[in-house]
């Protein structure tokens, strides 16, 4: 007894192609938006302090959803595997920092977008091998990007303005009298900036994927030779996928440092983080935008909340909880791969389908 589409007639193609053609879907989205924009910022999550909710749960999960969107575009829609995600986030962060120091008067939000564009360029360069190779071979090529960029973040002092600590520190920025970044900024402001980026980027992604470019990515993913034969240029399709995905990842990297961490060293961009993002995509569901949300929430929020409850309610040692959540993540991943390789998004779809017919499935 969920809902049925019965009785909702469409008289125009435009209505049929709308993002949420069904009335109940609109209600669902409205509830989710209400939660994200109003209820959680006011009340926080049950059982957790408001500060903790904002700074350790909500802001990162929003940022990681953007990362997951970016990686999913590359992996789920264009079928090109990448293990350099964390390093590309680093490119976003360091380029945002450089842009802010070179143009001190530029608006922080514009800096973030520009850093996304810089990352798109870098991503395109490291995406070049994808024209000749794919699969595991491409994975090794992106590993080259990961380790080379990590090295560059340490060895090229220009990137962190010859700072002795080797870390990037976030300067003070404001817009319309509201402090955006720096130590004095309110978590609420930073949260809404990230959320704004997420909404705009999700809207952009869903439209690009439905359009010509997105379709060419999916053709390349499904069978590149066949796609080439019917007129998709692999060069433009693959490189645009790398550029688009890196744009998202770069923005999320800039947001991560400037709107969440406040300062960052190269450890925030190491290979283990790349794997975490990969997990988010796979657990959420390859080739699904809703899946990005599910994946980021499951992989980030569940361990954080478990650790917090484990500490405050059951008094379990943080070290034990840390390992327990690592194991849990692996087990969840294996179970999802065995039960439904298309991830939570697919499970969600199946559940919806089942509920439509319930209680008379035949």
């Amino acid at each position, binding site marked *: 007894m969920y809902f049925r589409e019965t009785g909702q007639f469409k008289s125009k193609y435009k209505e049929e192609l709308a993002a949420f053609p069904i009335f109940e879907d609109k209600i669902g989205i409205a509830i989710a938006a209400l939660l994200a924009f109003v209820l959680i910022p006011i009340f926080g999550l049950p059982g957790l302090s408001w500060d903790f909710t904002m700074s350790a749960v909500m802001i990162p999960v929003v940022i990681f959803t953007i990362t997951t969107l970016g990686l999913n575009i590359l992996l789920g829609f264009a079928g090109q*595997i990448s293990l350099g995600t964390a390093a590309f986030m680093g490119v976003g962060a360091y380029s945002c920092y450089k842009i802010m120091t070179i143009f001190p008067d530029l608006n922080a939000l514009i800096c973030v977008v520009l850093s996304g564009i810089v990352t798109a360029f870098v991503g395109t360069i490291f995406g070049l091998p994808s024209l*000749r190779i794919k699969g595991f071979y491409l994975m090794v090529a992106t590993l*080259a990007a990961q380790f*080379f960029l990590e090295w560059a973040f340490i060895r090229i002092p220009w990137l962190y303005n010859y700072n002795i600590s080797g870390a990037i520190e976030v300067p003070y920025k404001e817009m319309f009298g509201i402090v955006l970044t720096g130590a004095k900024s309110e978590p609420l402001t930073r949260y809404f900036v990230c959320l704004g980026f997420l909404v705009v980027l999700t809207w952009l992604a869903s439209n690009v994927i439905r359009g010509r470019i997105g379709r060419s990515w999916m053709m390349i993913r499904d069978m590149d030779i066949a796609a080439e034969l019917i007129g998709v240029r692999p060069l433009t399709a693959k490189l645009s996928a790398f550029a688009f995905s890196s744009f998202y990842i770069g923005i999320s990297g800039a947001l991560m440092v400037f709107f969440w961490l406040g300062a960052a060293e190269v450890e925030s961009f190491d290979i283990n983080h790349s794997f975490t993002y990969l*997990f988010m995509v796979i657990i959420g569901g390859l080739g699904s935008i809703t899946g990005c949300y599910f994946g980021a929430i499951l992989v980030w929020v569940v361990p954080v909340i478990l650790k917090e409850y484990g500490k405050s309610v059951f008094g379990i040692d943080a070290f*034990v909880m840390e390992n327990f959540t*690592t194991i849990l993540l692996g087990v969840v*991943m294996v179970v999802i791969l*065995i039960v439904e390789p298309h991830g939570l998004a697919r499970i969600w779809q199946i559940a919806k389908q089942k509920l439509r017919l319930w209680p008379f499935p035949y």
Partner: protein
Amino acid sequence: MDLLTGIFITPFAEMIGLPDLFFQALWDGFVSGTLYGLIALGFVLIFKASGVFNFAQPILVVLAALALISFYKMGVPAWISVVLVLIMFYALAWLIERLILRKLVNTDGNILFMSTVALSFIIIGAAQWIFGGRPSSMIHKELGFPVGSVEWPMFGGGVYFELLDISAAVVAVLLIVCLGLFFSRTKIGRGLRAVADDHQAALSVGISLNQIWVIVWFVAGVVALVTGIFWGARSDVSFALQIIGFKALPVLIIGGFTSVPGAIVGGLMIGIGEKMFEIYWGPLLGSGVEGWFAYFIALGFLLFKPQGLFGDKIIERV
């Protein structure tokens, strides 16, 4: 101009000017090359036998080394702890086959790969929980491997050979020869190759897929143990060893994913190449280039010879 002499003239002048240093670097590169080759060998074995790209191999190396040390610390004699670790790996192979691989028969290679990534998370969590996260030192002395070094005078200087490195190279060669014989001469080895070729055809002639997979994961565990002992002896045993494990990926690219000799040759090329590059060309770029140089060699190979030196040619049919 300065840069050009730095690239093309100075390094070679240094090589000729200080030949003992050159040979020392060559030997160091050779030793780390054999060890890279060993890790790559673990990957190749499982890839050949089950078509699974086993991402958990580096973490198996860490697990083997940590388990060996903690058995020893519990008071078990060194060689008996080796046996205990082997038993543990057999149990692990059986569990992996039973709980993960059996359920994923006939799925896409990508999904199998992801499941090994997930497996490595499970092992990391469990190993940290049980053995703790602190680095500890390897018990190679107690296992009877020689310590110390011999100096071989040469060109007015001398080249130092660590006895441990020599024994590592010898053990590696022995292991490779044994594995080669095992694969080509025994019934199980032939079964392994049959499974690698075609699962269904292998099943139809009566080879038990499940048994073969347990065996191959166990063999990979043995390779991991050997690698773990020698890598652990060169540096401390900690989870950082896992990063070294990733170096096996460029080795695989160079050698080919399905070739045992390829793993060794690729390992040597990477080991020697990166040592040379670090010593002679590294200062130009600021040191620490060892971290990524291997991947760039691999990139070069990918562009010109994607199947590697010894790999099967990839033919794609529409």
